[in-house]
């Protein structure tokens, strides 16, 4: 695996499905900060769940005008079911075909397991990464690092 992209790097663009009918394109979000949250898989246990946490913290992110996108290798139908079940209010992008291509571009794909790391990126309004963090795979990284990075923008 290549190393995780660090602050100063240009964020690789992507256009990925968020549900069977809709795509999200990173470059179309220029002008506002973007938080990318790579995570291994939908349907991990509910209470310790990273996406459920971000869903709760969303109003704090929005105070900075930031857009949050979750990304995993799960497909669009899986994301749609998961987002509905968890009442998520932010998009989940499907890094599904070719599998993990975007995770690889950000240096956060785990070849052996076939899913991505638990990795966070904060991207500024010009599309440049200002903060990145790769958490141990079993540790939900929380939201404190993201908030600090947004404050530093």
């Amino acid at each position, binding site marked *: 695996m290549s190393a995780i992209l660090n602050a100063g790097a240009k964020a690789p663009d992507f256009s990925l499905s968020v549900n069977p009918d809709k795509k999200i394109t990173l470059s179309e979000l220029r002008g506002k900060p973007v938080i990318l949250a790579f995570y291994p898989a939908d349907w991990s246990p*509910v*209470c*310790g*769940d*990273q996406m*459920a*946490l971000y*869903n*709760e*913290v969303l109003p*704090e992110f929005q105070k900075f005008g930031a857009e949050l996108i979750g990304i995993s290798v799960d497909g669009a139908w899986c994301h749609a079911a998961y987002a509905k079940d*968890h*009442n*998520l*209010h932010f998009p989940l992008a499907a890094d599904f075909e070719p599998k993990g291509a975007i995770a690889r571009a950000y240096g956060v794909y785990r070849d052996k397991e076939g899913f991505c790391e638990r990795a966070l990126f904060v991207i500024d309004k010009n599309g440049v990464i200002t903060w990145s963090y790769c958490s141990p795979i079993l*540790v*939900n*990284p*929380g*939201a*404190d*690092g993201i*908030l600090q990075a947004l404050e530093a923008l």
Partner: protein
Amino acid sequence: MTKLAVAVSAKDHRQGDKDAPCTLVEYGDYQCPSCGQAYPIVKRLQKHFGKRLSFIFRNFPLTQIHPYAEPAAETAEFAAAHEKFWQMHDLLYENQGRLDDELLVELAQALQLAPAQLLQALETKEFQPRVRADFTGGVRSGVNGTPTFFINGQRHDGSYDFASLVEAIDLVLE
């Protein structure tokens, strides 16, 4: 290592001596089954460590997946205003399986708190700011789900079964 961003203070709900050598802080959600599992474990820890341990509970309701987490947290804060926080906290966890609006009223009655006052407090969201303050403080501290424990201000990333918590607390007591 992730640290508690909001220091323990007199505003917190505490069981045990404030000068105890170990302070365990839990960020919890009354509707979270994992917190329900942790509830008797904390009781066992308190018995095991006695005066060496003080315990603090802070609210971290995951409202989008647990519709009763927020009203339950506000009900506990309502009870706190009548100095019955811990009784309500315990009753909420002991009756977690049937948590709903009716249960909140029933528990208020059980503690001789006026149901009408509780309903008004919930309606006017009187205790919401307190619950939100706990929540945002928790987010700043790196709370990453429920329950999240801090032992003397350091986040406990290990398992929250009895043996793991005893081991972690023993380390700070050494």
